């Protein structure tokens, strides 16, 4: 057996003077040509471990290890100077979200050339040549043009390719990719994974860090599952994903919504079926109905961009309509039109049979209370100085409840989302992401709405928390009969929550229908592309 490229033995990392170990005895090896995946949820220590391999653990970090070797040499006592010789030259590092991982004020060509300028003696002209060559290698069309453009002028996929190009510029022995596809749309994500998979050939090693098991399934030869700084399960990818031994791995796999249709619970393993038959709805009067909605925005130089065109649908009491599409497909604008937050340039929206534009301002306000919204990032929709009590109190006050009863109602709302009265005094920053989303849901429930628009409500959450929130939404629908207009880019989530689905692309509805029909017999080519891009850690169950 060849000597491993990376050997880590009993790695421990803590921050601050007396901080607990964020990484608590992690050991692994990476052989040349092998790809190891570190999988875990936020706070599991996976990113810290990856950064330690290039000596960039962070400010005030205390790193101890029985062995920390790269290419057979001990790097645990490396000084900053030694590390600089390794970083970029022998280890390439790709971070999540290239928009913030590339310098916004420099053309991407200069960013890609930077490691070459630092580690090689190439002349400026030779570096320029090499940059174009690298851009071609990572599949960027028109490299001459792209090299001169700034990150914000490139699409998410091209940016991520540029970032990868800069990481592999010097032909490193090890490529570390920290959540390389997390910020990307499904089809783009699949392309980037293909690119990374192609880079795997040869004897360079790869370390992929991700919270997403499906990403791992595509790339990794071996998987290490991290929880609270420890590796709880470690083995060949196929074995870990198909025959997980540890409870936590099982729970993680069960929490992926893609494989479980509506009516199953995600947050308990194995996924329990709570309702088997498709539900029936009263389709006489929809809560909201859209008729031929059109919305255009004025672009630069008097051009017009149509972001929503001819969109029609209806949401009936108690059902969930899922809208799925990639970024820029017009999902969120459609939601804003439904809520009357934007005026449509064509078509109209009716609320319980009455058109928005025919309502008096007072009627509009009354109707709007029946339609609530939950956003992706509740942190930015809360005033950071407000306590949860005040956030809910304000929402309750609008319903006309007397001051004396407001607190009781706020507690009742918290109970509905499985939070206790002790959370009333907390501020948004003192809550976890899942708790914040629960508070956002509680706030939406305050006026007893008939419809809640959920705009990517679980996209920023870890998969196990995501599962809990999806279960909560399902429970609330069962108990309160509230309808959802559920917007997501994630087909798995949409499959799990929806009764009916609209597939949007470039502002148009390309396909709509019953969730089973869309997912088992997609008619439109775009829907098929989307579905084929869905990455599943395990094969979908038949039927």
């Amino acid at each position: 057996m060849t000597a491993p490229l990376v050997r880590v033995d009993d790695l421990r990392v803590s921050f601050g003077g007396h901080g607990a170990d964020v990484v608590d005895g992690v050991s692994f090896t990476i052989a040349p040509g092998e790809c190891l995946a570190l999988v875990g949820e936020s706070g599991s220590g996976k990113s810290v471990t990856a950064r330690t391999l290039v000596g960039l653990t962070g400010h005030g970090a205390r790193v101890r290890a029985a062995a920390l070797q790269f290419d057979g040499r001990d790097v645990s006592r490396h000084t900053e100077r030694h590390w600089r010789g390794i970083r970029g030259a022998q280890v390439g590092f790709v971070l999540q979200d290239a928009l913030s991982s590339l310098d916004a004020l420099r053309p991407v060509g200069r960013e890609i050339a930077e490691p070459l300028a630092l580690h090689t003696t190439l002349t400026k002209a030779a570096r320029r040549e090499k940059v174009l060559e690298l851009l071609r290698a990572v599949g960027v069309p028109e490299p001459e043009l792209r090299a001169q453009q700034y990150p914000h002028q490139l699409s998410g996929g091209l940016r991520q390719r540029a970032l990868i190009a800069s990481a592999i510029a010097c032909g490193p022995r090890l490529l570390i990719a920290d959540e390389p596809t997390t910020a990307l749309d499904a089809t783009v994500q699949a392309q980037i994974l293909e690119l990374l998979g192609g880079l795997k050939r040869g004897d360079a090693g790869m370390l992929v860090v991700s919270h997403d098991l499906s990403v791992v399934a595509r790339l990794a030869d071996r998987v290490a599952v991290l929880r609270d700084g420890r590796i709880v399960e470690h083995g060949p990818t196929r074995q870990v994903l198909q025959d997980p031994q540890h409870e936590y791995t099982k729970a993680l796999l069960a929490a992926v919504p893609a494989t479980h249709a509506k009516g199953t619970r995600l947050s308990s393993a194995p996924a329990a079926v709570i309702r088997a038959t498709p539900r029936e709805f009263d389709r006489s009067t929809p809560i909201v109905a859209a008729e031929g909605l059109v919305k255009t925005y004025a672009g630069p130089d008097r051009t017009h961009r149509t972001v929503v065109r001819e969109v029609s649908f209806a949401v009936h009491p108690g059902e969930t309509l899922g809208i799925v599409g990639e970024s820029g497909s017009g999902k969120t604008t459609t939601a804003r039109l439904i809520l009357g937050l934007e005026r449509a340039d064509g078509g109209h929206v009716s609320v319980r049979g009455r058109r928005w534009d025919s309502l008096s301002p007072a009627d509009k306000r009354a109707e709007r209370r029946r339609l609530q919204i939950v956003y992706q990032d509740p942190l930015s929709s809360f005033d950071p100085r407000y306590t949860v009590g005040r956030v809910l109190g304000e929402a309750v006050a609008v319903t006309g409840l007397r001051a004396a009863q407001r607190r009781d109602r706020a507690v009742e709302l918290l109970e509905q989302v499985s939070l206790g009265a002790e959370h009333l005094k907390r501020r948004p920053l003192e809550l976890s992401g899942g708790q914040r989303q629960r508070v956002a849901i509680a706030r939406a429930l305050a006026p007893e709405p008939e419809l809640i628009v959920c705009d990517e409500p679980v996209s920023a959450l870890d998969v196990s928390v995501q599962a809990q929130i999806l279960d909560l939404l399902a429970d609330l629908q069962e108990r309160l009969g509230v309808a959802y207009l559920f917007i997501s880019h994630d087909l798995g989530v949409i499959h799990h929550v929806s009764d009916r689905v609209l597939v949007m692309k470039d502002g148009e509805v390309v396909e709509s229908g019953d969730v089973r029909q869309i997912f088992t017999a997609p008619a439109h080519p775009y829907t098929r592309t989307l579905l084929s891009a869905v990455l599943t850690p395990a094969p979908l169950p038949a039927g």
Partner: protein
Amino acid sequence: MRQLKRIATRFAAGVGVLWGAATLSFAALHVTAGDAALATVAGDGANPTQAVLDRVRADYGLDQPLWQQYLGYLGRLLQGDLGESYQQRVPVATAIGEQLGETVQLALSAALVAVVLAVGTAVLTARRRPWIRSAASGTELVLTSFPTFVLGLVLLIVFSFQAGWFPVSGNDGPAALVLPTFTLALPIAATLSQVLRTELEEVLEQPFILTARSRGMRDAGVRLRHALRHALIQIVTMSGFVIGGLLGGAVITETLFVRRGVGQLMLTATTSKDIPLVLGVVLFAAAVYVVVNLVVDIVYGLIDPRVVTA
């Protein structure tokens, strides 16, 4: 196209600012106590006859109702006529023009020193050990809260009276420029440095900084090549503050170091109620302010490509 429109809008706003400055200072001067005619003839000690005063008032239009004086003033202003100084009996433009060179020299050298000091301190101290940061920000706090004339006096006592390195006053040669320059520059540098350090510390937390470090770039390179440019946007935004500080500080500094210049001119004009001259200097200051902000707006596009295309 959009860029031109943006600049045109800013230009119109700038004209508005100038008009506001003219009107406000006109009002302020006429509301405050003191008799311009009396001051014009002889200053506070003299005792001219009523007939002389009346003639002076008639000559300068001081006997007209205030609104007529105001409209007349605006009308002349539109023709580019700033009027004539009551005291010096020369056109206001000439009076300012004669003093301008000295002040520009002082302001430019002070601005240069301030920016270099601020950038240097901020780059060296951002995200360093706590004691380095607190030492730097403590010094900055002292410098910003010190009144300019006290700071000037301290510099005078130490470097001029005691050490004898620089002359106490006057306009002669580069040596005479050093102490006034630092008196003017230090408070501005302190504020800029505080802002710049906060900004740098925020930028240094960004993922693209981690990317740059992961390429093997040294810390100095990361700070200078990546972080600084982002932080400088903030400094460009603050150039209005810098201009204000330079103009206000020039009045005090020039008085303290007995230098000729626009600041000195402004002070004498105010104490002697030389209304046209005061209005002239105020308008001049406002014009500098407007022009600098206009330039800043254009420079933004050069530093940050996102401004133009976004």
